[in-house]
């Protein structure tokens, strides 16, 4: 889409506008930098942060107990040797896809509407990846030896086993986290300089000054900045696709029926973007209303994100269909049994719940009014988040619980520690988000200023 033909009428609000009426460079900078500098709505912030912090402490408790007793405190067993830790890992890393997708891929595709949400979603990505990154470590039987998965020259000449997708995972996730962090930080530089300039206390001037690496808004700075930003966007783009492809391969490489499927990499990427956008909506809708950012994150933004949600939702639905079709078409008795077991087995409830959440619910977004209704969108996004978690649960658990030999079939019963760890990561995620909102600009000011039309008829 292009907004070049959009007439910005100062008096009649345009429903398709990407920026509220009456915004100027000054107002953009003032309104956005108000958040880290003036810190409005302290009660909302403190209550939210306290809740997040409590959950974070729950996570600390769960991790401490885990390190004291071992992974046996969870519900995992033989045959279901992977449980919540892997479900949550895939779920969080999926959520971590929206940010880079929005800021890199949409940037390269010249989707201007990404501007107002990219900063926030990139932060969300980083925090989600942080949560995701915890799980493989906690999941290990002997987490103290996590570094054995890294290729370092050890005295015994031992290397990781490169045929294992878990090693690929280490590279994929760590690269993704690094590039996302750099991309996010580079994007922050001009804004940090703005905060330095506007901060009233010397302390904050110093802090922002150091963080902005001496940015002065020089033309040369801008030239380098834009090049770097473009290059990083180019670098991040394939990573968006590779990370979740490789997470998909964690399953696809195994020969477990229900995992061993070539469609997994693309299907996982689609699912990741799906869940990522759902999480963005879940967070952005309350954020823009609490901090009165509706001028910057408009209904138009929400509608566009809803459309992405629908599109990726259908991709995911196609993935489900394809899995069942392949199972039937292959004639493989184990695959066929697995499909049947998903639909009518002991975990059929979870399966049908995920179909309702991920395929049926988003169909409401065909209606334009629903797409533009923040409340409806918020609910749909929440349901999709639940559905995507269920999807990972169904993939991990139902595939493992009844595989080849009926003698070894089993059931999975998550324990209180499984749930504590999962809920605890919400604490980590939300606590980081609250800190981010409080100390850094949640919307890219420099980029937003470009969205302000210079004069009537100009391209914003």
């Amino acid at each position: 889409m292009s907004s070049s033909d959009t007439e910005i009428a100062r008096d009649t609000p345009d429903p398709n506008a990407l920026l509220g009426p009456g915004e100027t460079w000054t107002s953009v900078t003032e309104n956005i930098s108000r958040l880290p500098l003036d810190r409005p709505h302290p009660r909302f912030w403190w209550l939210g942060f306290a809740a997040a912090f409590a959950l974070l402490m729950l996570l600390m408790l769960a991790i401490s107990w885990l390190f004291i007793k071992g992974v046996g405190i969870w519900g995992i067993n033989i045959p279901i040797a992977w449980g919540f830790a892997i479900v949550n890992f895939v779920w969080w890393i999926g959520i971590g896809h929206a940010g880079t997708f929005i800021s890199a891929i949409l940037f390269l595709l010249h989707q201007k509407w990404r501007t107002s949400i990219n900063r926030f979603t990139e932060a969300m990505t980083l925090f989600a990846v942080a949560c995701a990154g915890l799980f493989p470590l906690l999941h290990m039987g002997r987490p103290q030896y996590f570094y054995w998965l890294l290729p370092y020259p050890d005295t015994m000449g031992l290397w990781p086993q490169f045929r294992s997708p878990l090693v690929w995972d280490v590279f994929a996730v760590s690269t993704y986290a690094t590039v996302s962090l750099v991309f996010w930080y580079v994007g922050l530089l001009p804004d940090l300089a703005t905060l330095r300039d506007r901060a009233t206390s010397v302390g904050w001037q110093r802090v922002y000054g150091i963080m902005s690496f001496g940015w002065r808004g020089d033309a040369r700075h801008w030239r380098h900045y834009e090049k770097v930003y473009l290059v990083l966007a180019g670098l991040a783009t394939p990573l968006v696709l590779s990370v979740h492809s490789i997470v998909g391969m964690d399953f696809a490489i195994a020969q477990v029926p229900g995992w061993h499927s070539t469609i997994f990499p693309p299907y996982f990427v689609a699912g990741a973007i799906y869940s990522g956008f759902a999480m963005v909506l879940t967070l952005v809708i309350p954020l823009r209303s609490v901090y009165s950012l509706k001028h910057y994150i408009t209904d138009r933004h929400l509608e566009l994100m809803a459309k992405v949600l629908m599109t990726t939702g259908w991709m995911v639905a196609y993935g489900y269909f394809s899995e069942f079709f392949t199972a039937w078409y292959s004639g493989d008795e184990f695959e066929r049994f697995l499909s049947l077991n998903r639909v009518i087995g002991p975990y059929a409830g979870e399966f049908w719940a995920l179909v309702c959440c991920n395929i049926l619910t988003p169909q409401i977004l065909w209606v334009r009014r629903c797409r533009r209704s923040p409340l409806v969108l918020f609910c749909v996004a929440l349901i999709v988040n639940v559905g995507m978690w269920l999807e990972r649960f169904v993939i991990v658990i139902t595939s493992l619980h009844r595989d080849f030999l009926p003698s070894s079939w089993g059931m999975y019963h998550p324990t209180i520690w499984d749930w504590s760890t999962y809920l605890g990561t919400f604490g980590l995620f939300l606590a980081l988000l609250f800190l981010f909102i409080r100390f850094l600009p949640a919307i890219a000011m420099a980029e937003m200023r470009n969205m302000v039309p210079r004069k009537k008829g100009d391209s914003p």
Partner: protein
Amino acid sequence: MGASFALAGISGCNRQPAKEIVPFTNPPEAGLGREGLYYASAYSREGYARGILVEAHSGRPTKIEGNPNHPESLGATDAETQASVLSLYDPDRSQTPMHGPSTATWIDFENDWAPRRTALAQAHGAGFAVLTEPTTSPTLLREIDALLQRWPEARWYQHTALARYDDDGTQTDYDFENADIIVSFDADFLIAHPAALRYSRKFVQRRRRENNNAGPNRLYVAEPTLTLTGAIADARLALAPTEIADLIEQLDRAFGLGTDDAAPASAGRSAPHGSQRDAFIQALARDLKAHAPRVALVSSNTLHSESRTVLHDLHHRLGALGVAVKESPAVRSDSDARARGDLHALVDAIEAGEVSTLFILETNPVYASNRGRFAEALIRVKHAVHLGTRRDETAHRCHWHLPASHYLESWGDLRAFEGTASIVQPLVEPLYQTRNAAQILRLVTGLPAKSDYDMVRETWSRNAASSFDEDWRDWLDQGVVPNAVASRIIPQRRVASATTTAPRASTLAASETKTMFALFRLDPNIGAGEGSNNPWLQELPKPFTHLVWDNAALLSTATAQHLSLENGDVAEFVAADASLHAPIWIVAGQSDNCVILPLGYGRTAAGSVGNNHGFDAFAFAPPDGAQQLALREIRKTGKKHPLVSTHGHSEMEGRDLARVISVDTKATEPAGETEMSLYPDVHYTSYAWGMSIDLTSCTGCNACVIACQAENNIPTVGKEQVSREREMHWIRIDRYISETPNGTRVVHQPVPCMHCEHAPCELVCPVAATVHSSEGLNEMVYNRCVGTRYCSNNCPYKVRRFNFLDFREPAGSTVYLQKNPNVSIRDRGVMEKCTYCVQRINAGRIRAERENRTVRDGEILTACQQVCPTEAIVFGDLSDPQSKVSRRKREPGDYALLAELNTRPRTTYLPKQINPPSALPV
């Protein structure tokens, strides 16, 4: 010989017996070079000897193997014998005498006893009684005799939980090599019999394809509930005890007064399976006629005595005596005329005021006897003394409790079911202040105290040849006493049945078929509670139900449906004068008119491991000692008990997992094609280890599971962890159950690690902690494992086990003394699995290299292979085309489990071959 007397094994801080013990001259090959030594000894299974070799490391016994020289072992053992080594180190064992609730010393006891002894001696022992289990030990019998000689008024009683083998002074032995047709009437002779190992070996040898020149035998089984013997039957009927009596009657008529065929006379009596039953009996009668005299009708003490007379008679008529059936005087002392009878006789005597002092030696009648008067009668005994390895229920009710020695720490002797005598040779000095029964008997009458060693030597030096010292060493070395010697030394006892243990068989009228009966059976793993405090036996999945750490009332599917009961529902079983609350479990192949109540659970003083598991069926068993009880009603209580089974699913889901073929079927040739793979094939230049498991031979006896546990230091995890599906056994016995016209069919399939050529686990491990060895083993490097558990997910056989928690015993526990020093104890968070006993392979290879040769076939035995009574498991070098395993794998029908996954397992299976009667469809 001389070399074997060397001061072998004396190294480290061991406590070897002061008397010389003699290591085994030709130890099992697997053991050599592992710094371990073998000593021949004997394990008492219900009083009968089972010849064993005990492996010792630094003087501590760690593992038990069968003694190949022993006729009732033939080199094999069973689960119970395997587990007995752990009981030696049981932290709950009695360590000192106990006077009431307080600890005491042996001196205290002797001082306390001296005045009582004087008083008793004056009365010639009047008022004194001793209660033992029936025994075969010549020394113990000699000491009992000495006591009875010295104190003629003293009385000896015998008690055993379920009288089984020889209550009329004779015992029946079977030679299955000479039996073409075998019929079992509720006799689990492959498992629950003192000669089970020999029976299993001989029975299965006739069935294996490689031995088919003799022609496979055919087994008919009629039994109320599925036993492992019934599971291997070619034709099987689930019948209530009364129906079995009818069946025997019918059979009797069929061979009676010249009647040609077995008329289905009692058709309609058991309508539901009338036709199946008629077909069964017709086929059976025809087979018996065709194959007489090479037939064996195996009966058990659960049968009506009339039925047993009929079977005895039939043996005569069919001419089977002397061919496949042998009757001989009893070896065990059940019918010893010197004894005054069983527990009932003792209770009668106590109530008549004839017993004021009672010694209870190594038996636990307060727990292990039917509901009744004994516990109350015991209160009336003025002075009761208990000798036992632990302070059990009986000990708690006696004035004194004396700690008894474990058989691996005291000298003794025993005879096997077929008569062979063995010396029980200890490997260690008693760990605690313990003595054995024979020593106590001397102490009772004040005979000069003698060491256990001297007592046994004295028994055997009587009437001995001049070369006794040399013979003695020979016996210790070989583990058996030659029969010629034994018959000279063991005095032939008078046999009279008047004062014997009363037969406690069914006394039911045949008309009571409609009644529901509770049948009391020993627990397949822990017996009548002897194994209660042994965690290996508690965690061993029971046959068919795969329950652990619990017993359950077993119900047929139809009965459970009728009562709308599900697995784990607690039901109330109501008899005329008692009731019992017990959780139920539904089993296939059980008569609808029976409930099976396994004994041995509900212990209150078994020890920290065995207490408070399951329900006590003894408390419900009828006071007259019968093994069955008519039930009035079974009520649903609405309560649940968390029963834990390791194997919930018993169907194969139409998958080709455990194959069954009929003997007439032409077995398919092994598929020669190998599938393509992206990875290059490994070329093996040296040994290529492999295994073949014959499903025809496997009886599902579980011996391999415990042998593996003992050899490889496998932890037990407890009921709660098993309920979370975290049991650690490296080899498991899968069982698949189906209904066929020939009765319930069960296939047992032992599943160890398959050691795949293309191992899916190796591919996915991120740190290369599981790797392929140059000899084709799939190796697990514990130290490298970080515990991602991906390997287990990717293992289609699910043989990998994970240390989810720290499953090691608490530091400093005595059970560490049992651990095999050649196998690492695994840390928390580490994956483990079957290694094909790599420590044994390495020892064998090193030995061969030292002798500058290659490993000989059969030189390296895995623990599961070595223990197997039926030689179902064969391990060896696949690169040697003449090795036994190679030959087995060339047999038609050899197949790999889940071969379609192209994992190319080194472990392959031979299908289960059945020989159903031709009259019946397969």
